């Protein structure tokens, strides 16, 4: 019966030829092999986000008056609501972490070397989209922390020269964070960004499938190269990793259920110790320590322009690393990458454990 159905589709859509393509595809095996799993982990967590996100939509109400109460309702009245919301929040954080690891591993293994420049560029856009999903989703429960984090975050966008205040107004739906902001963030979080993510993910995956996984430079001259079949050997390993991640995600969601916090009050002072999500904290801390004026310029504007320049450099990396283009090693960029990681860790540490006042 199954064979008949298969044959029916195969006659029309040539499934066997694409199956043959996957059957021929191999994955290089070497000491850095473990990093290949992180792309798959990020994808898996994205799928978890889509499924739990759709479930949350059944009850969530995107308005300043009702958002907090609707999330509270999900967590206290709806059966397994607390679990779905907790999985959604934990999975979002793990997805950002996994995207960070995937990005930095691709950076250190110099996977952006020709002919994979476009794979890197689509990947870096995906990274920004994931951060955007985190930022927009953070406001949706309309709690105190998320309210002020969004206020700061949108104000940062507003400090961009020339177009800043326009971007801020568009993001906020007005001058202040209000009902208009939550509906905009909701639209971005559940439609615009997921569609963009799906499009870029599709492109990214097609490129990876067509070109295969990149080998690190150290492997190129290795006479004793090893590889394994993508289907089923690597895919089955991927599935096992996904199951482990899912088990960990469930454990985290059950043992440390995500808190809802206090309802946002736009007319209360910003509480002490306010921080954005951990993955934005290093930028937040940078803006905290940067002097008000550097020469003639506002410190915050310079800081924000610096973040923008770093983002642009990240996207353009395949064209900046001229050594990697010639398949040559140069430790300069790797050292710079290590410095960036150390800087992010230091700023994050200072934000959480440094002097608060």
């Amino acid at each position, binding site marked *: 019966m199954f064979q008949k159905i298969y044959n029916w589709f195969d006659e029309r859509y040539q499934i066997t030829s694409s199956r043959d393509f996957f059957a021929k595809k191999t994955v290089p095996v070497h000491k850095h092999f473990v990093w290949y799993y992180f792309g798959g982990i990020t994808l898996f967590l994205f799928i978890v986000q889509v499924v739990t996100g759709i479930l949350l939509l059944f009850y969530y109400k995107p308005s300043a008056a009702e958002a907090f109460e609707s999330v509270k309702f999900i967590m206290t009245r709806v059966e397994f609501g607390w679990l779905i919301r907790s999985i959604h929040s934990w999975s979002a954080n793990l997805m950002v972490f996994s995207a960070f690891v995937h990005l930095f591993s691709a950076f250190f293994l110099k996977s952006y070397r020709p002919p994979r420049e476009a794979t890197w560029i689509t990947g870096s856009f995906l990274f920004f989209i994931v951060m955007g999903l985190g930022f927009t989703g953070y406001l949706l429960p309309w709690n105190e922390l998320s309210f002020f984090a969004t206020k700061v975050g949108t104000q940062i966008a507003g400090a961009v020269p020339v177009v800043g205040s326009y971007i801020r107004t568009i993001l906020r739906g*007005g001058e202040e964070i209000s009902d208009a902001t939550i509906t905009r963030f909701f639209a971005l979080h559940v439609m615009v960004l997921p569609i963009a993510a799906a499009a870029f993910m599709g492109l990214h995956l097609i490129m990876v499938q067509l070109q295969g996984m990149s080998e690190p430079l150290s492997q190129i001259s290795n006479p004793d190269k090893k590889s394994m079949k993508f289907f089923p050997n690597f895919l089955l390993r991927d599935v096992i990793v996904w199951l482990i991640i899912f088990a960990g995600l469930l454990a985290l969601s059950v043992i440390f259920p995500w808190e809802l916090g206090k309802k946002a009050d736009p007319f209360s002072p*910003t509480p002490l110790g306010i921080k954005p999500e951990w993955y934005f904290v290093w930028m937040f801390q940078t803006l905290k320590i940067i002097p008000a004026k550097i020469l003639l310029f506002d410190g915050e504007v310079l800081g924000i322009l610096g973040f923008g320049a770093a983002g642009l450099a990240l996207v353009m990396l395949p064209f900046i690393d001229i050594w990697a283009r010639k398949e040559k090693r140069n430790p300069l960029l790797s050292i710079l990458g290590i410095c960036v990681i150390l800087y992010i860790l230091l700023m994050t540490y200072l934000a959480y454990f440094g002097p608060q006042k």
Partner: protein
Amino acid sequence: MAQKKITRRQFINYILSGSLLGLAASAAYSILRYITPPEGTETAVSSVVAARKGELVLNSGKIFRFGDKPGILINTAGGELVAFNAVCTHLNCTVQYDPQGRYILCACHNGHFDLTGKVISGPPPRPLEQYKVNTRGDEIIVSKNI
């Protein structure tokens, strides 16, 4: 002078790509206009009743609503009433009064302002906008310095 002739196919291609570009541009413009919030949705307020007399004890502050923005009214240790726009000039957080330090604090990035609104320390680039404070009977009225 020899004139360069274009084929009918090229002509159609130009027309089609031109119309497509025009269509994309007009769609982009309409979308951009659509997502720009209409003006005048926020009410302009020039003065409000921020508190009642006796509501604020000495050396304390209160956040009040000034239109769609928060304001801060402080009864200083010396018994003087001062009011400011409570939106920090750094990144828009809402400031608060610190009775121990007797200064205005922005908890987001640790900005400090004195009781005239001037920046004492931290990253805020500009002072807080000061409001005028008057009393009318039992009411403390805060208004913009226009």
